[in-house]
């Protein structure tokens, strides 16, 4: 063994010890304890050493470290993509700290931006949750935590594994090894490669054969989910005939110090399995001029590996300064089904380039895409989708509908659907419309005494109904409110 590796091992051990110590101390002395930043975060920058340290900090096995390094080496060879219809400021990847426990947390709600609190009020977020959402560093015991533990027991009884990715790597290495990167390979795209190299944490869900997950799983309920980090990695595996519905995010705006979020979500559905994945994304969109705000560059892909499997994506995207995500389905199994329902709302100077890919490989595969884009202010909202029917996809069927609604004169709404068909028995249909809120509809509402802003949100709600219907009930109610809040000031 060379001295260099010995040094590195020692260093990792020291860091690990420090991290553990800091974590323990942090819990006990939260109010007054000032953590030494050097002990629980890595210096900014990205290199093989940093990745090794990160992996060591997270006590990962050797194969995981190697996996990360492989991704990193690939990432180095890739050019930053510029094809999306987005205006992205230069990202300095060396200026980011790839492992940092959240710093500069406000110490109480009094220090939190009053605007944020106002929004919570409007959304009806319970008081005890507001602190958590605002990222206040108080160690209160929330209902959700205790609720979470009860859930865990119930899940364990039916054999469902639901834990953080770090835990999964330690506890279920063979499962993680088998499926991680099998849907989104390490070198898939620029941001997926980056994520594979430096992902901090995420969720791991495993539903064994024939099990119908007894409840809707949500990151929100997961213990230790307080700060999942900017490079989130989620892996959901559904074995034969299993079913799960997974909710990601929440409707209340999340405060976050990190500008760049590059998450990867992988779904694997084996024979007759069904996965329903719902997202409500409401990260900080920046101020009215677009300053600050999160870059949300996400790779989400589901693989219908088994026959008769089904993957359904539903998303409500209202936050982030820049959203760049295309939840996709690879319909490999015969008669597998892919669905994509999306509402993307942009306001002020937000930019969204989002859509889906449906890759039909198996026979008799079906896909359905419903996308609703709403742009207001000076924002830009694009749908970008690909429907690809491979030669063997006998009898494949796709239906795509994407509608855009414009509110205001300075926003943009765009549609870029790609259709590639190689099988003569396939039927692929695409329809798109773009319009503004019709004056007739507005007039009708107003003549019945509904105020302008309420009328607009009523119409917008109707416009999005098709997608909201696919959301789990409580989410749907919140999503509606969320749109109202997000559209504030868009009219008049």
């Amino acid at each position, binding site marked *: 063994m060379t001295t260099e590796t010995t040094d590195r091992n020692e260093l990792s051990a020291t860091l690990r010890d420090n991290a553990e110590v800091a974590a323990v101390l942090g819990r006990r002395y939260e109010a007054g304890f000032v953590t030494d930043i050097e002990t629980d975060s890595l210096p900014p920058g990205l290199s093989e050493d940093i990745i090794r340290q990160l992996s060591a900090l997270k006590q990962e096995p050797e194969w995981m470290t190697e996996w990360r390094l492989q991704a990193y080496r690939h990432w180095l060879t890739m050019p930053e993509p510029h094809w999306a219809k987005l205006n992205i400021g230069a990202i300095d990847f060396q200026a980011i700290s790839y492992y940092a426990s959240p710093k500069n947390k406000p110490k109480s709600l009094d220090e939190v931006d009053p605007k944020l609190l106002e929004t919570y009020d409007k959304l009806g977020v319970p008081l005890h949750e507001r602190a958590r959402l605002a990222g206040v560093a108080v160690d209160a015991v929330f209902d959700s935590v205790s609720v979470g533990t009860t859930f865990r027991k119930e899940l364990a009884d039916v054999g469902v594994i639901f834990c953080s990715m770090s835990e999964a790597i330690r506890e279920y290495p063979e499962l993680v090894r088998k499926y991680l990167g099998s849907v989104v390979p390490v070198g898939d795209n620029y941001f997926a490669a980056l994520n594979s190299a430096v992902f901090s944490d995420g969720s791991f869900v495993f539903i064994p054969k024939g099990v119908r997950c007894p409840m809707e799983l949500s990151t929100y309920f997961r213990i230790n989910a307080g700060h999942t980090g900017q490079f989130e990695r989620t892996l959901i595996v559904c074995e034969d005939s299993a079913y799960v519905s997974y909710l990601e995010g929440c409707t209340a705006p999340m405060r976050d110090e990190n500008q760049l979020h590059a998450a990867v979500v992988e779904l694997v559905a084996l024979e007759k399995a069904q996965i329903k994945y719902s997202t409500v994304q409401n990260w900080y969109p920046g101020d009215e001029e677009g300053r600050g705000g999160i870059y949300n560059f996400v790779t989400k892909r589901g693989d219908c590996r088994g026959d008769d499997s089904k993957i359904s994506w539903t998303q409500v995207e209202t936050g982030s300064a820049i959203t760049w995500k295309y939840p996709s389905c690879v319909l490999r199994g015969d008669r597998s089904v892919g669905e994509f329902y999306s509402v993307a709302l942009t306001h002020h100077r937000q930019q969204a380039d989002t859509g889906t890919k449906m890759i039909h490989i198996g026979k008799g595969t079906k896909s359905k895409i419903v996308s609703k884009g709403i742009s207001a202010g000076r924002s830009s909202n694009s749908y970008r989708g690909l429907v690809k029917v491979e030669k063997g996809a006998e009898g494949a069927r796709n239906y795509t509908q994407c509608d855009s609604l414009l509110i205001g*004169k300075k926003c943009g709404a765009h549609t870029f659907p790609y259709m590639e068909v190689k099988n003569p028995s396939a039927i*692929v249909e695409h329809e798109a419309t773009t319009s503004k809120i019709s004056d007739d509809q507005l007039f009708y509402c107003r003549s019945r005494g509904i105020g302008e802003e309420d009328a607009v949100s009523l119409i917008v709600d109707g416009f999005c109904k098709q997608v909201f219907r696919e959301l789990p009930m409580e989410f749907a109610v919140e999503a509606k409110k969320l749109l109202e809040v997000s559209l504030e000031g868009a009219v008049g």
Partner: protein
Amino acid sequence: MSQAQATPFVDSLLQAAAQTPLPSSGIDWLDTARRENLDAFAASGLPDTRVEAWKYTALRALGQRRFVLGDAQAAARAVDAAVFALPGVDGPALVFVNGVFRADLSCLDTLPAGLTLSPLSQALQGDAEPLRFALSRHYREGGDAFARLNAALAGDGVVLRVAAGAKVVAPVHLVFVGAPAEDDIAWHVRHVIELGEEAALSLVEHHVAVGKHQHLGTQVADIVLRKGARLTHVTLQDAGEGSTLVRHDSVQLDAQAQASLYVLELGGSLVRHDLHATLAGDQSRLETRGVFALDGRQHVDTQMAIRHQALNTASDSVWRGVADGRSRGVIRGAIVVAPGADGSDASLSSKNLLLSGQAEIDTKPELEIYADEVKAAHGATVGQLDERSLFYLRSRGIPLAEARSMLTAAFCRAVFESLPNAALREHIDHRLMEHLPSA
């Protein structure tokens, strides 16, 4: 870049350009524009499929081929005028064989009042200044390699002007004949077409072949419609089986101008058509109608971009595609509504039939909307003949093959229904019927 320069295609054309001086050189600005465009082409070479506009059309095979620049023997090639005779098209005609103007085949004797029509080579000998704006254009987009090549090497083409208020009723016939030669020839034609205020013109652009050849033809056309002008433009592309044809049309419509563009793509082995239309004036209207019917190993790629940038403009596009054999049909239809272009009404429909397991159709309708007082919609489908319709016809004693070709023809025919020239419409229907797969 250096790799692009190394391809035989680029190599052969650059060499040819260095050896043969172009006709009508000596005009300073034209020589400069030609040189600059050639340099740009030399630097970029042919685009690869990573360039978005060429995503579905690979030029690797073309890049490996060598071409001779222009046909020195064009004047002597035997061409029977019956090849390009069209019913309902009896106006003046301009005929080019392998890109070279043939006065003997053309008909320029009795031009209607208000119409100026001459080959580019002649127009440049007179006062070239009016052509300066169009011919000094630079093509800067990454995928514009052929337009650059054309701007650098086109020695001939069509210069057509309709004076303000003049109505040219009998269709003007522009014919491009590909004739077999000793080598594979690359020819380039450049058109400048302008309709004055309130002028009207009916134009038929016709690509045909006599015998087998594998030439490359490029064509760049700048078409301008001044206020209130009306244009009906029919393109009948019946080029030779093995030929490569690249067309680049820019159409500009000023206030209240109206253009109807009809395109029928039947021939060629590799065909690319870029159609860029700009609705630049208030209340201008554009109608595009197109059909491609492919078989064998044909590859036809249509890239249409319609830009609304004035008030109360309208565009309506209807395209149908049929792909059989091992062919590949590509159609992109982009609609852009610029900021402030309120009252725009844009629609596009692209329906396609995929008739064979080896064929492929790629369609990409796009909307880019920056104004809110708009109506914009597009629809695209890829599918096959309706089983129930087939069953209906068969239950009435029509054999399967015939039923299929009837339905396929009906699928395409609707596109040309609005074409006012009945005789020509009938001919197009007939050509389409002949061309469609009967099995």
